[in-house]
């Protein structure tokens, strides 16, 4: 066992943090800087990070869950307003379905945001949500039941087929795909594994568990980054902001809140790292269970850390111009995505304690 970064992972972490620091919004007003957001999106694309979970040629991903989590963590740390997790999840799902990924594809989620949307008929019957879409996104994947598994299908998200939602997270795009949008086959140009050319492979229960493990790991890693970033911002503010003639960060009451936040961030990093490693190194159910532990811990921790950040910023922390609510809002989305802490605990209960009385 050696849970430290390899040399390559350490270099990726440095590179991702450098890019995130250089191109992320420094202020709330900076969120509207289209020149900067275009440069950020281009830089992430150029770095090849959106392809980390695409087919490496042998059916496996180009890079591990660990590498994808390193980038998610770095982008969370600076509330980088660029699509990453959405496209990476789409590429991973497309790879499992035996197909080459469509550039800019994202995954449409069911209204509870816990899992990919499943559509049985020729058109969508409820609104579904494409999370973390890029500016170039034209397609969202949905699942279609097929025997014991599911096939990958697509719905268009360009033009009039979807509506950009004014979501809580100010840094990412959510597209609402209304009921009645037609579902079409995903045509597969490159077929890996046992699939038939042109059709792709059936996604099994294990495929979906592994994919969920990735989703839980990436959203947990993002929460770790958000905690680290908002804590840095808040510690700097507490050291500078003066009341009674001294920095507010010299008061024990404030110090203890921030010390607790630091502990929560460190514990979160430990669980999230394991979840990211588990994606490719444990069986599907164990990997997902590791993701559930990570997500339950990180979601609760991030909520506390972001709320503390608002509190320590005082009145200013409750104004739109103060950047801490950008972190809090993004943490709310990352927590809900693939299921918040309560959902993860219920699933862990089911797996570890058996069915509750009166429930199956």
């Amino acid at each position, binding site marked *: *066992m*050696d*849970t*430290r*970064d*390899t040399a390559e*992972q350490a270099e990726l972490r440095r590179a991702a943090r450098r890019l995130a620091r250089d191109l992320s919004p420094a202020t709330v007003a900076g969120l509207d800087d289209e020149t900067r957001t275009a440069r950020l999106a281009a830089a992430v694309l150029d770095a090849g990070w959106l392809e980390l979970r695409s087919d490496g040629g042998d059916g496996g991903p180009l890079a591990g869950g*660990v590498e994808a989590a390193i980038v998610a963590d770095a982008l969370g740390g600076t509330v980088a307003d660029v699509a990453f997790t959405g496209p990476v999840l789409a590429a991973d799902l497309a790879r499992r379905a035996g197909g080459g990924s469509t550039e800019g594809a994202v995954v449409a989620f069911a209204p509870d945001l816990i899992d990919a949307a499943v559509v049985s008929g020729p058109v969508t019957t409820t609104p579904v949500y494409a999370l973390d879409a890029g500016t170039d996104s034209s397609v969202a994947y949905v699942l279609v039941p097929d025997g014991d598994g599911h096939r990958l299908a697509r719905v268009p998200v360009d033009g009039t087929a979807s509506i950009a939602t004014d979501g809580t997270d100010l840094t990412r795009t959510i597209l609402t795909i209304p009921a009645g949008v037609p579902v079409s086959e995903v045509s597969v140009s490159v077929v890996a594994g046992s699939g038939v050319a042109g059709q792709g492979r059936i996604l099994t229960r294990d495929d979906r568990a592994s994919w969920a493990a990735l989703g839980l790991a990436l959203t947990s890693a993002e929460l770790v980054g958000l905690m680290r970033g908002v804590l840095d911002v808040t*510690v700097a503010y*507490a*050291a500078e902001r003066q009341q009674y003639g*001294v*920095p507010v*960060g*010299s*008061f*024990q009451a*404030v*110090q*203890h809140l*921030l*010390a*607790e936040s*630091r*502990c929560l961030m*460190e*514990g979160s*990093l*430990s*669980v999230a*790292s*394991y979840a*990211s*490693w*588990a994606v490719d*190194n444990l069986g599907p159910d164990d990997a997902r269970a590791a993701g559930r*532990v990570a997500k*339950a*811990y990180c979601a609760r921790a991030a909520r506390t850390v972001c709320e503390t950040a608002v509190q320590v910023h005082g009145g200013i922390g409750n104004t739109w111009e103060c950047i801490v609510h950008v972190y809090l809002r993004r943490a709310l989305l990352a927590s809900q995505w693939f299921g918040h802490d*309560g959902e993860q*605990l*219920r699933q*862990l*209960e089911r797996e*570890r*304690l*058996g*069915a*509750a*009385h*009166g429930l199956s």
Partner: protein
Amino acid sequence: MDFRDSPAEAEFRVRLRDWLAGNNPGLPASSTDDEYWARQAEWHTALYDAGFFGLSWPSRFGGHDLPTVFDVILDEELTAAGAPPRPSLGYLVQGIDTHGSEAIKERFLPGLISGRERWCQGFSEPDAGSDLASLRTTATRDGDEYVIDGHKIWTSYSDVADWCILLARTDPGVAKHKGLSVFAVPMHQPGIEQRPLRMINGITTEFGQVLFDGARVPADNMIGDPGEGWRLAMTIVSHEREPGELGYVARYAKTVKELERVVRADPGAFGSDQRESVAWAHVQAEMLRLHVCRRLSERLDGVEHGPGGSIDKLLMTWVEQTVGSAALAVSGPRAVLDGDDVALKTYLYSRAQSVMGGTSQIQKNIIATRILGLPTA
């Protein structure tokens, strides 16, 4: 980043698992039953003699020179077997190894590590708790010996100890942090009186209280130099804050496993709040296991522990108190109808974790000023 066993680690794990299958003494938890400590020496020596204790410590003192991460495997397998946790004395080993002369190490580390000689730690006093450096126990030179006078408290398991690592004032004429020295004091002698205190959960063996009245210690038993006592004490307490050093992961995970077994046996008997508290305890215990994996991996390239131990101590405290609360929740009315209920005792014991080894408030002060770099008032 790799959480898998190396071939050597896998071989060790199998050997340990096989041994545990036939050598689990089935002790009650140390936190809830005096009987644990009565039989702990036996467990310590059995684990040691089988080659499964002192894994990362120097072989010349009876250790095995293995990488630190082997302790993770030990904790995991002890948990899986439902065996007692490993003895918690790594912090004493670290203190003596860091500050002791070669002669001191050769004299004391083998017995400490093998369990043949039992130790306690005499730091706190009735009027010197968080403000440890204000302690008043004195060690006065008298020929080749020092004479000890004073009153130590929270001296865990002092009643069965052969030795006490004692922090005493040797120079009252200098600043309070500078006049302290540490000794290995033999406990079987006149001039030492034991007055143990009963904990809120009824345990009587843990909270030792020791009165030194003219007790004697050879001057050669000083560990480190005169005046080095404060630095030595800080080495010990910082390691005492590390769950990787203490092996508590196994203790918490074992309790969680027992709670899960209770609920699984009769799922209909437990409400959603009880189920959630057990699931959350599992999440917390897993967090600590993984956190220890990370910390012990960091040590593979010799990263020295520093104030980071305070972070680990707080995390560990939250875990212990979460597990204690889960035990109380699962026990429900039994915990109030039966004052001897094990879950009640587990819960009550857990409240001490935010005090022992430095209060949570002290840890937060350390984190805020030394890790976050916040200004002091």
